[in-house]
């Protein structure tokens, strides 16, 4: 469904130091630098897949998404989405994709969202019966209620995002690009958006490429992740495999009957956290089973759970490792 080969997108950016002198000098001379926002990225996405596109701020995720949706012309490389070259922005291509950006909106600000839905119906050439069916379905999935009939400017951020999603799906696209769709939303609204995206994917078989800084989004939605940093691909594969690779240790969360000495816990594994009668131990996968048995035998355990390391930690470690690798590669003769 999506094929990207050696994609590069470079920007020429004017650089100017602060201050009056620099401002005056910039009238006559403007130094420019080339920013390699995306620098030789390749990957494939199959139909119906849900892929998380991850990376720190400025990594090149959004730029890649904008190239995939035809908004930006690539500097070089080959990109195909649903059999089309996005930069051409053919009608057939635009009718198969949608891009939802958490920080941008397509809803008409001064009119109720229903007007944007109707406008999109007309522009995408959706028949009235299909439109009614789609809106009924989306209204159900997103619990829109009477939101489409209130002026957009009077909706809360979460309500607006629900309507943004509905507006973006009027034409039932086969490929959804979601750029931080849960940004700024409260926890329950984030969960609602996540559950909708998953349901939509399962129901329609649409391909979903998502960027998000919220690891809950990624964990809930994306079996596969593509990690990009400083414009380069640093990982492409299963989320589980990534976590295992970065952190082969598991976390043993112990709820105890009473507080115990740290020394007793350290005999079992690395103590990550200890607070009153709750402790978190880090133990290697191979000794997990025996450690659990020893914990149950030697400690007043009330409850015990085994978890992976938090995704945020895994990602943070991945980003710092890939930056270190990059720095080393740049310094190499």
């Amino acid at each position: 469904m999506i094929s990207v080969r050696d994609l590069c997108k470079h920007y020429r950016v004017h650089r100017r130091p602060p201050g009056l002198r620099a401002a005056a000098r910039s009238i006559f001379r403007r130094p420019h630098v080339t920013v390699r926002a995306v620098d030789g990225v390749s990957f494939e996405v199959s139909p119906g897949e849900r892929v998380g596109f991850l990376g720190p701020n400025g990594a090149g995720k959004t730029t890649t998404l904008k190239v995939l949706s035809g908004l930006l012309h690539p500097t070089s490389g080959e990109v195909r989405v649903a059999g089309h070259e996005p930069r051409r922005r053919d009608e057939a291509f635009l009718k198969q994709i949608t891009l939802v950006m958490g920080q941008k909106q397509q809803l008409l600000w001064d009119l109720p969202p229903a007007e944007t839905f109707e406008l999109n119906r007309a522009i995408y050439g959706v028949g009235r019966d299909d439109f009614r069916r789609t809106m009924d379905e989306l209204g159900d999935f997103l619990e829109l209620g009477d939101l489409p009939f209130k002026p957009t400017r009077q909706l809360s951020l979460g309500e607006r995002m629900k309507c943004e999603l509905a507006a973006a799906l009027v034409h039932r696209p086969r490929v959804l690009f979601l750029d931080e769709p849960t940004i700024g939303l409260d926890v329950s609204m984030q969960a609602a958006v996540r559950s909708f995206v998953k349901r939509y994917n399962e129901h329609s078989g649409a391909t979903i490429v998502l960027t998000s800084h919220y690891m809950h989004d990624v964990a809930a939605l994306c079996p596969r992740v593509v990690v990009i940093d400083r414009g380069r691909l640093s990982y492409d594969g299963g989320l589980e495999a990534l976590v295992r690779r970065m952190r082969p240790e598991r976390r043993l969360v112990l709820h105890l009957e009473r507080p115990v000495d740290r020394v007793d816990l350290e005999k079992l594994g690395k103590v990550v956290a200890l607070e009153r009668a709750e402790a978190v131990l880090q133990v290697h996968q191979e000794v997990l089973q025996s450690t659990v048995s020893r914990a149950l035998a030697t400690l007043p355990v009330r409850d015990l759970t085994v978890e992976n390391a938090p995704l945020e930690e895994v990602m943070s470690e991945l980003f710092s490792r890939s930056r270190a690798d990059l720095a080393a590669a740049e310094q190499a003769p």
Partner: protein
Amino acid sequence: MRLAGTLRALPVMLRVGFADAVAYRAELLVWVLSTTMPLIMLALWSAVARDGPLGRFGQAEFTAYFLATFIVRQVTGSWISWQMNYEIRRGTLSMRLLRPVHPLVAYGVESLGVLPLRVVVSLPVAAIVLAVVGSGMLPRGPGMWALCGAALAGSWLLTFLVSFGIGSLAFYLESSVKVMEVWLALFFVFSGYLVPIELFPPALRTVADALPFRYQIGLPVELLTSAHGWPEALALVGRQWLFVAGAAGAALLVWNGGLKRFAAFGG
């Protein structure tokens, strides 16, 4: 988007454009008040003409000319270059580019969506023209009225395409607002908006004839006030449409080149 699809979508696009234009009532009132410059010029030139006519312009002719100018400006105005400048700089143009309809059409329909409202504002002014100067100065015969229609359409297209082209310069210049301001300064001088072209000194009139500004306002006003006979009117409308074709080519050239440079910042 194919032409048939665009035509099918057009009624909804126009209706939504109109609904968007009338969303704020107070803003509407301010907007009407801000387009009264021809009425001020009318008062000024009528006072000048009280002592005797200037060329063919007596008080009645000035009244007809500037009220017609008011109407033409209302129905042919386009202010999209500011909106485009904002959308290109802030990256919000992205949402427009995702839809399968050419932004030229989308911006055009948005401009046209305001038209019914402007016609409503213009109707009382047209009634005043008729009451004050009578129907003697109006075009005679359906042919001349059709030519007036063509000139008004050409005027709207020329103004819109220039606005679109200048708005597209934001892809290259980071801000195209100053370019539009320069264009407007020249427009006010050479379009006949403040002074009828007929009252220009001959040398300046030759310059005005060769520039596009006159065809944005002056020409339709001149035709509506029967300033030209058939052969001259036909030649002038022909020249106006040549400017329209040139403006369309230039605007699309600037747009297509600029789109490759679009950085879609801000998101």
